[in-house]
C-alpha cells in the first residue's frame, strides 16, 4: 500500500485541502469527479462519457450543486455543510452522553479517530470540543442553530467560501473540520445519503401526486414546486426533523429505511406551513368549540397517522408486504402521552385520510371523543 507512517495514503489534493480553497465552486468539481471520473479510472465507464457527464454537471444551473434526486415536488440534497454540522453535533453529544434510551444516537465514527494523522486528529478534536462546549446542549430548534442552518444552506455546498460565525467560534470549528471530513467521512456519508435518496425517490415519483391531492384535501395545502429536503448521515435522534419549512432527514437511521423512509419524509413535510397552513388552528378551534383541552401530541399523532396510512396504501398498491405505520411499529401506543391517542386517531382521522369523511368532521369527532374522556 502507498502509505505514510502506517496511515492510508491520502492523495495530495485531499492532503493539502485543495477543495477548500476559496474562489471557485470546488465542491461541485470534487463531487463531479467522484461521481464520474473515478468510475472511469476504475474501468467502469469511458473517458469521453465521463468528461461529458462532468461538463454537463458543472455547466448545469447554479444552486443545484448538492441536489442528488429530484421529482415534481421534492429535491433531495446531500450537502457537506449540513452533514458536517449534524455530524459534529451528534459526535459532541455522544461525547457528552447527551441523549439516552430512545433518544441515544451512537456515532461509530468516533472509534476511527485514532486512525487519523496526529495533526488532523488534533484539529478534528478541537472542532468537536467547540461543539461540545457551545452547541451540543442546544436543540436543533435553537434560534442560533436555525440561523446557522439557513446560512449553511445558502453556501450551496461550496466548501471554499466564507462561513457564517453565527455562534462565535463555529466558523473556525467548521472551517478546520471540513477538509478532514471531506477526506475521511464525507464519501461514506454522501454515499449513504444518495442511496437513501434513490430508495425514497422510486415510490415518491410514482405516488407523490396522490399525496399532494390528499394533503390538499385534508389541509388546503399549497405545495411548492421542488421543495428542498436535506438528507444527512446524522440529524436528530430519529428519522429527521423540520424547522422553518426545511426538513433534514436522517439517512443512516436504521429505523428510517425502505418504505419507512418514504413514510417519514411525508410525515416531516406535514410540519411545514405549505402543507398544513391552518390545520393546527382549525383543530384547536374544534376543541375550543366543545371546551375540551386538546391533548398535547394530537396534531403530531394526526401527522403520523396520515403518512402511515398513505404508506400502507402504497405498500398495497405496489404489492409490497403489509406496512405497519412508523408510530405503531415504534410502540407509541405504550408511550405516555401517546397511548390514549392511537384509538381515536385511527377511528376518526384515518377515514378522513382515505376520503371517507372531511377534515372538519374528523376534528369535531376527535374533540367529542376527548370530551368524553
Amino acid at each position, binding site marked *: 500500500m502507498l502509505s505514510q507512517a502506517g496511515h492510508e495514503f491520502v492523495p495530495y489534493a485531499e492532503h*493539502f485541502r485543495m477543495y477548500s480553497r476559496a*474562489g*471557485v465552486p*470546488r465542491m461541485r*468539481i470534487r463531487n463531479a469527479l467522484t461521481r464520474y471520473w473515478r468510475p472511469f*479510472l476504475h474501468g467502469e465507464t469511458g473517458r*469521453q462519457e465521463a468528461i461529458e457527464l462532468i461538463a454537463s454537471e458543472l455547466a448545469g444551473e447554479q444552486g443545484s450543486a448538492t441536489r442528488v434526486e429530484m421529482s415534481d415536488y421534492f429535491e433531495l440534497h446531500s450537502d457537506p455543510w449540513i452533514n458536517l454540522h449534524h455530524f459534529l453535533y451528534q459526535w459532541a453529544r455522544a461525547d457528552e452522553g447527551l441523549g439516552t434510551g430512545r433518544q441515544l444516537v451512537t456515532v461509530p465514527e468516533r472509534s476511527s479517530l485514532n486512525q487519523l494523522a496526529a495533526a488532523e486528529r488534533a484539529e478534528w478534536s478541537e472542532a468537536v470540543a467547540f461543539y461540545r462546549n457551545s452547541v451540543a446542549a442546544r436543540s436543533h430548534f435553537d434560534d442560533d442553530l436555525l440561523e446557522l442552518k439557513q446560512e449553511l444552506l445558502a453556501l450551496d455546498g461550496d466548501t471554499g467560501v466564507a462561513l457564517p460565525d453565527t455562534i462565535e467560534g463555529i466558523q473556525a470549528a467548521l472551517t478546520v473540520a471540513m477538509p478532514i471530513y471531506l477526506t475521511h467521512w464525507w464519501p461514506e456519508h454522501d454515499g449513504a445519503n444518495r442511496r437513501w435518496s434513490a430508495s425514497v425517490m422510486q415510490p415518491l415519483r410514482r405516488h407523490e401526486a396522490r399525496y399532494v391531492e390528499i394533503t390538499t384535501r385534508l389541509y388546503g395545502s399549497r405545495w411548492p414546486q421542488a421543495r428542498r429536503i436535506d438528507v444527512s448521515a446524522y440529524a436528530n435522534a430519529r428519522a429527521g426533523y423540520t424547522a422553518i419549512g426545511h426538513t433534514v432527514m436522517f439517512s443512516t437511521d436504521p429505523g428510517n429505511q425502505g418504505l419507512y423512509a418514504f413514510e417519514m419524509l411525508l410525515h416531516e413535510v406535514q410540519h411545514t406551513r405549505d402543507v398544513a397552513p391552518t390545520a393546527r388552528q382549525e383543530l384547536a378551534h374544534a376543541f375550543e368549540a366543545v371546551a375540551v383541552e386538546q391533548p398535547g401530541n394530537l396534531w403530531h399523532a394526526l401527522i403520523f397517522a396520515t403518512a402511515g396510512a398513505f404508506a400502507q396504501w402504497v405498500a398495497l398498491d405496489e404489492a409490497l408486504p403489509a406496512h405497519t405505520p412508523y408510530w405503531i411499529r415504534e410502540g407509541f401506543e405504550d408511550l405516555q402521552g401517546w397511548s390514549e391517542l392511537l384509538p381515536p386517531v385511527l377511528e376518526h382521522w384515518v377515514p378522513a385520510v382515505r376520503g371517507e369523511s372531511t377534515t372538519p368532521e374528523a376534528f369535531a369527532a376527535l374533540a367529542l371523543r376527548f370530551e368524553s374522556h
Partner: protein
Amino acid sequence: MVGSRRLLGPPDPWRRTPLGEVRGWVLIAAVSLFAVATWAAPVESLAMPLGVAVPEPIASSELFDFHNIDRVNLHHLLYQWARAEAASPGAIEVPERDDLDGLPDEQREIWNSAVRTYSDLAMERDLLFDEELVRLRDHLAGIRSLHEVAASDRPLLEAVDSALPVYSAHWWARHERANRSWLDGVLPLARRHEAAIAPRVAAAYGGSWPEERIHVDITAYANRVGAYTTSAPHVTLSSEADNQGALGLELLFHESSHGDIMERPLLQMIDTAFAALQASDPGRDLWHMVIFVPPVRSRATC
C-alpha cells in the same frame, strides 16, 4: 503544478487560465514555435542542442532522470529570495535570509548584488510562463546552450555565477542533502511502481508517456507552489518537507502529466464537452483538478 510551501502574505488567487487560451502549468503559448516540433520529434531535438552536455543525473529510474544541480537550485533560491525581500504577492518564506548577517562583508555584498539583479530582472516574471526565464533555467540545467539564453537575461546568468561560491559556502550543502533525502524517499517508490502507474496516467488522459526519461530537477525552492513543469516534460520539484515519500511520488506523476503529450488530449476533450453544451468550465481549472485525482487506487499494493 502544486502548492504547499508556506506563503508570505496573502496568496495569489488560485491561478485560472481560460480553456482554449494559455494553459496553466505548461508552456503551450510560450513555446508555441517549439511545441509542434516537440510533439512530433524526440525530446532531444528541443532539449539537447548540439554543444550542450547534459549533466549526469544523480539517479535514474526507468522513467525519470533525477538531477541535483547547484546552479538550478541557486537560480530558484535567488528568485524566491528577491520576491521574499520585496514581499511580492504570493512570495514564500526564505529562511536562509536570516543567515545573511552572518556572512563576511565581501560575500554579503556579492550575494546582495545577485539578489538585486534578480529583483530587477526576474522576480516579477513567471518561472513557468516566461519563455525566456524557462530558457535560462534550461541552460542552467544543462539542456540549452548559452546562445539560446536571451541577451537581456545574461546578467542573471552572471549573477548566478558570481553568487555560486557564496551559495556553495553556506547553503548548497544543506539544500543538496535535502534534495538527496527527498530522492531517498521517492526513488524506491518510483522504481517499484512506475511501470504500473505510467501507463495508467497516460491512458487516463488519452496521451502517451514520453519515450525518453523525464528530466527532473530536484531543488530546495521551485516556484510559489512547490513544483512546475514545462513542456518536454521537464519537471522542477521542490524537496520541501511537504513533498516527501508517497506524496512526492504522486507529485512526480502529477507534474509529469503536465507534459503536452500527456494532458493535451484531456484538455481538448474538456473543451469539446463544454463547447457542445455552449457553456464554459465554471472554475476554469477542471483539467487540473482531473489530473489531481490519482489514476491509480491509493490502496495499490506497495
